[in-house]
């Protein structure tokens, strides 16, 4: 599997290192499958300043090594694992800022952890930005809640915007930190032109929003944050993750968005992924998209009729009202997407974004469309 060319950017093997997969330097690598566990393991040999280093056996997550390509950046970690953290031909690359979050949303697909990882990821990301190739068009910033990094997040964004003046940066945040106008002001002084900020809105009613995000005052802070961002003309995408608690007010949420947040650039209604906290809170939060078909239709068409850009993410076409098909976006990353056996007969399969392959449960209503 790996018998090729790897350039190592940091020769201290005791540290975690970023390995830039390139054709410059020829090194060897051995790959084998552990007979007991079926794990794929590799060992790489790399050369820096004429000194050869041999890595430990590295456990490989197969999903990171599907279609590895020249230009990808791998992270070789001290625990002996190797992770593909930047894919040269992907538009879904992200800088992961932290596992911490000041919300704890009931349907979070990557539940936050209360660990002090800010320095670790800050250093890693800073190094990663340094070596990112100039061909990068788009980069995401995600977590956890990235703004927990506070001012150093702005430093990172500045680092990106300075190196790549034309890049599109998509920052995913719950928006609460932006209720501090000084923070927004500081952010505006750097990457405003490049920045596109995605913020979830769970309800138009603060109690529901706070309950879904399991945090008091979350709604008010997010709403103030949105107004502060608007004041500085940031580009904002509002994300409404449809769930059992908010679906009945979807149309009212859409009215609320048009009346109170008409300055946002895009609204995305999103289906849930049955992973993370969703299985745990299954009874309170999970809902089959087919059950909110009508509510979703009304709210999407309502916003669209007011000239607001609106899309539907993460819901297979067979669970959507036919009027919404044109709003559906293939939003699930290539390596995550899944189509079922019955999907083979569906005439809309090519246009369909499919389902989450990572989801532990799927709607029983997924069925082929024939006409």
């Amino acid at each position: 599997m790996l018998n090729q060319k790897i350039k190592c950017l940091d020769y201290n093997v005791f540290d975690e290192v970023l390995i830039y997969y390139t054709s410059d330097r020829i090194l060897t690598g051995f790959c084998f499958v552990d007979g007991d566990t079926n794990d794929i393991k590799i060992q790489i040999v790399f050369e820096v300043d004429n000194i050869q280093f041999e890595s430990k056996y590295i456990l490989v997550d197969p999903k990171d090594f599907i279609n590895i390509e020249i230009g990808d950046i791998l992270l070789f970690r001290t625990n002996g694992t190797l992770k593909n953290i930047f894919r040269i031909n992907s538009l879904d690359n992200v800088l992961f800022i932290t596992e911490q979050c000041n919300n704890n949303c009931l349907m979070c697909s990557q539940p936050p952890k209360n660990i002090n990882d800010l320095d670790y990821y800050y250093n890693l990301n800073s190094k990663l930005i340094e070596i990112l190739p100039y061909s990068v068009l788009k980069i995401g910033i995600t977590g956890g809640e990235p703004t927990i990094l506070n001012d150093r997040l702005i430093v990172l964004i500045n680092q990106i915007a300075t190196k790549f003046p034309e890049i599109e940066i998509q920052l995913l945040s719950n928006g609460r930190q932006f209720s501090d106008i000084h923070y927004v002001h500081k952010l505006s002084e750097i990457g405003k032109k490049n920045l596109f900020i995605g913020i979830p809105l769970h309800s138009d009613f603060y109690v529901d929003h706070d309950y879904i995000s399991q945090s008091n005052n979350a709604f008010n802070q997010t709403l103030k944050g949105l107004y502060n961002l608007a004041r500085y003309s940031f580009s904002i995408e509002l994300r409404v993750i449809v769930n059992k608690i908010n679906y009945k007010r979807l149309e009212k949420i859409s009215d609320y968005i048009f009346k109170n947040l008409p300055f946002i650039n895009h609204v995305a209604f999103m289906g849930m992924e049955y992973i993370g906290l969703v299985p745990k809170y299954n009874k309170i939060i999970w809902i089959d998209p087919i059950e909110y078909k009508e509510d979703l239709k009304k709210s999407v068409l309502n916003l669209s009729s007011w000239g607001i850009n609106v899309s539907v993410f993460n819901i297979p076409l067979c669970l959507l009202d036919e009027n919404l098909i044109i709003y559906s976006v293939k939003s699930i990353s290539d390596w995550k997407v899944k189509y079922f056996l019955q999907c083979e007969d569906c005439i809309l399969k090519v246009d369909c974004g499919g389902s989450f392959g990572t989801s532990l449960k799927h709607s029983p209503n997924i069925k082929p469309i024939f006409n």
Partner: protein
Amino acid sequence: MYYLLPFRFERLDNYEILVNEVGDYLICPIETSNKIVSKQINENDEIYKDLISNFFISKTPIPALIDNFATRYRTKKSFLDNFTSLHIFVMTVRCNQNCIYCQASSKETDHIIYDISYETLDFSIDLMFKSPSPFITMEFQGGEPTLVFDKIKYAIEKSEILNISKEKKITYVLCTNSVELNDNILNLCKIYNVLISTSLDGPEFLHNKNRGKKNSYQKVIEGIDNARNFLGHDRISALMTTSFFSLDYPKEIIDSYIENGFSNIFLRALNPYGLVYKANDMKNYYSRFINFYKIALDYIIEINNKGFYFEESFTSIILKKILTPFSVGFVDLQSPAGIINSVVVYNYDGFVYASDESRMLAEHNDYTFRLGSVKDEYLNLFYGEKVIKIAKTWSNEALTGCSDCAFQAYCGADPVRNYTTQNDFEGFRPTSSFCLKNKAIIKHLFSLIINRTDEVMPVFKSWLNQN
């Protein structure tokens, strides 16, 4: 427990319409207001969520999102941001038509005392440039302004030169009956991007009858065609006035607008100025006008639902106030009023007036709304004693009968009209024709929104998205 935020309500059909301070509405069952005020709304009721999220009630005495709400209020009132933007120049009151409803007291004469002087023009243009607004509309009115073409040309050219240093965005509008649109005029319009606003009352028999002339319609249509060919189709807009005679022909009027290539109409009621009509006649007129408007609007909705885009512009203005969070700059229906805040008139007589209607009063020797001479200082005119006095009654938030009206946010104040029709600046709502007409139209629109949602909303939204 919860606290009340300011809101107003009105019963309509079997509902209560609740409207908050920024004009957002909720359609609720009868008795809802009473329940809200007597604190009978339960936190588990769905309506409790609606009321909280739409700023009708609050969990705390001051809502947590008061700053956001303030931003929304500022947005709704943002027509005030730049102060006076519409500057009307009454170039002459001479006219070559003889309209039966003429509000401008035009004169069929050659007497040049009815024309604006170059000196008045100079002073007026200087005043116009003193406006803080970066956007200026310079509108030429009459009488028939094309009768003094040289002065229009002079005024535009002078403004262009002064604007080299002032750097304002100027839009020129020429209000003309289009009867004498010759090449000189059209050339000037072409060079300076002048918009032409003309009058068309409907089909030939009706237009001619309103004009008191036999061939007016034919001349106007020729003028419109000529101007469209020369300047482009969208550079000419038309305005109609609903005379007593017009009231019987709503569909014919709309058909004639469509036949003549217009994609909108502004169903404009007579203004009770010029003192042509008796009070009793006018009362009867407005009830008939409301009926006329309803028939016309139904007809227009039907046309749109057949796939042909055609807008009723007065409806659009009201709907924008009701349905959107945005501000509407329409000088006849705003609070604080359009006079002085948004519009001012430089009259041929050398004086500055608060509005078009104000200078019409002056034709009857009533100078109540004359702010002063064009030779006066800007501050003395725009912030002078007269304006201070008018300002006390130019906000419907502070007028009896308006302050508690559910539709306050959609309506406006008009001290000039109050004074003309009811003898004081405050006015008296129960007998006000302004109130009668606007309230009836707003109620009618709500009734359509509630009872014929699927039929009317796509049409209404298509109009609003166009603007």
